[in-house]
């Protein structure tokens, strides 16, 4: 039995009814990693021995009759910007290439308490800055559907691992599309939760007012199961909201009759690839067949979302990355004569070009010269974008857009930024948004649609995605050649 091909829900049932052990499931995924990792390059660190030891421990608990979480024993890959105690957490940067966190992120504590099996740490763009994983200090990840193409980014390793069967589930982080873009390019499901739904304690910060951790899986049910586990208030992250979360997987419903879906015309005026446009149009028709009310809506400031995002995220990144000075942790240059030189040489030697360019942009936007005309202006635009969403949600329950303008493009294409055109607005407005595969293009590359919901209404967008998935199926696991 090729257990690595099973969804988390299927594996959970197989483990529960003792058709397979956790060790067998884990071994199957680890063997798959051995088989394809040299082609896909999804991982920075692989935790094979720890995973197998943990798997045997979970099997012992099951043998003793302990009642375990439904995700117990499910192999999961973790984006390498999420702190894992005792395991290298590099954020794909030379700066943290020796950093072993002394504590776990809150989401990792939750994963451990559910007895999930961590397979390893997945590749990303350096400090999550990018849309292709090519800015990783280590290596670019390849798209499992076509190894010459990008898996998207920044959570490219997490999406590629799930797509290729190198993990059953994974965690990514999303600041401007970093879960949804790679999910779209790799043909998997990825959820960026509402800002404040999931604790970021232990997430290596990019832009703190936009960052969210979220789940990636091959099915909507799997994503709902993992989201139910990781969401919730955390004393260690003051931005998490103390609201009641239900069991999003148990509450999934494919009855979406009379749900109203808004279609923002502005997204369709973007430079959309024809095949993406066709796929999204077909998906909209499918939703009509499923009984939804389709409404044209307007999000007129969307055209300014990308520059707004670029300024705000760079400003916050320049501030967050100020901590990397070669003193308390991480890389330190060996070439310095005084303290100032140590700071400058450490940062200049250990940050990559993309990170440096964003720090420069952010430093400028927060300087006396740039603050009013750039940072403050972008914050005003963010407010406008957010209020347009609030108005739109008076007319509809959810909003459907493409996730990306094209399917995955070739590695080496200079497309940093453009890949995020459809995704950044949800981050600026703090809204939940999910990528769902909605077809393949003529080169058999996956196409994704994005469903954006009201704050803390993840259930509605999960249901909308679930109904489509039930009607149209999921993307087959690619042959990796």
């Amino acid at each position: 039995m090729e257990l690595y091909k099973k969804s988390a829900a299927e594996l959970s049932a197989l483990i529960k009814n003792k058709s397979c052990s956790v060790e067998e499931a884990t071994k199957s995924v680890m063997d798959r990693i051995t088989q394809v990792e040299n082609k896909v390059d999804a991982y920075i660190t692989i935790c094979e021995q720890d995973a197998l030891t943990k798997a045997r421990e979970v099997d012992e608990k099951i043998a003793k009759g302990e009642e375990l979480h439904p995700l117990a024993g499910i192999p999961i890959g973790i984006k390498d910007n999420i702190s894992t105690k005792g395991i290298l957490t590099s954020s794909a940067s030379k700066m943290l290439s020796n950093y072993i966190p002394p504590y776990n992120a809150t989401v990792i504590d939750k994963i451990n308490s559910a007895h999930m099996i961590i397979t390893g740490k997945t590749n990303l763009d350096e400090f999550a800055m990018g849309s292709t994983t090519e800015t990783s200090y280590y290596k670019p990840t390849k798209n499992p559907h076509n190894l010459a193409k990008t898996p998207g980014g920044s959570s490219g390793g997490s999406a590629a691992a799930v797509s290729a069967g190198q993990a059953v589930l994974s965690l990514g982080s999303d600041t401007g599309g970093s879960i949804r873009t790679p999910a779209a390019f790799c043909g998997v499901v990825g959820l960026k939760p509402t800002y404040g739904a999931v604790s970021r304690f232990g997430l290596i910060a990019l832009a703190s007012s936009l960052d969210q951790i979220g789940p990636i899986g091959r099915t909507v049910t799997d994503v709902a199961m993992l989201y139910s586990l990781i969401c919730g208030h955390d004393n260690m992250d003051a931005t998490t909201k103390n609201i009641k979360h239900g069991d999003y997987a148990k509450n999934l419903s494919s009855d979406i009759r009379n749900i109203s879906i808004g279609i923002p015309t502005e997204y369709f005026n973007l430079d959309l690839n024809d095949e993406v446009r066709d796929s999204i149009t077909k998906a909209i028709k499918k939703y009509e067949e499923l009984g939804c009310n389709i409404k044209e809506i307007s999000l007129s400031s969307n055209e300014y979302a990308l520059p707004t995002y670029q300024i705000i995220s760079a400003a916050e990144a320049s501030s967050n990355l100020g901590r990397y000075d070669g003193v308390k942790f991480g890389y330190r240059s060996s070439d310095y004569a005084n303290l100032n030189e140590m700071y400058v040489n450490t940062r200049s030697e250990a940050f990559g070009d993309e990170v440096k360019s964003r720090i420069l942009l952010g430093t400028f936007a927060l300087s006396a010269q740039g603050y009013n005309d750039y940072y403050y202006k972008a914050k005003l635009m963010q407010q406008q974008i957010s209020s347009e969403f609030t108005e739109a949600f008076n007319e509809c329950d959810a909003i459907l857009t493409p996730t990306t303008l094209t399917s995955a493009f070739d590695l080496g294409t200079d497309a940093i930024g453009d890949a995020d055109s459809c995704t950044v607005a949800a981050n600026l407005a703090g809204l939940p948004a999910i990528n769902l595969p909605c077809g393949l293009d003529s080169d058999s590359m996956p196409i994704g649609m994005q469903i954006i919901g009201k704050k803390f209404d993840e259930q509605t967008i999960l249901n909308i995605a679930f109904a489509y998935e039930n009607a149209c199926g999921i993307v087959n696991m690619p042959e990796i050649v």
Partner: protein
Amino acid sequence: MQINIDQTSKLAMLKIDKSKYEQLQNKLTSILKSVDEMPRMTEDLKVLDADNPMELREDIPIDDKDRLSRDELLSNAPQVQAGCLVVPKIVE
């Protein structure tokens, strides 16, 4: 507007290779140009999410069992001596 790379890189504690100035300048100028072309919507910045503000925890120490030891905290430091971080001398 153009970014003065010399001045900004000093503020950011970065040394930028001169050969990369032009490429950086072009990239950053194009982002700034997009912002220049953006309308200025209002002058009032409201507090985001004012009706659902952050909840700060009490300012009290956490339990000993959850606290990291000094050794754990210093375990990733590039240079440590007698339980302290070592940096280059700043007083000549």
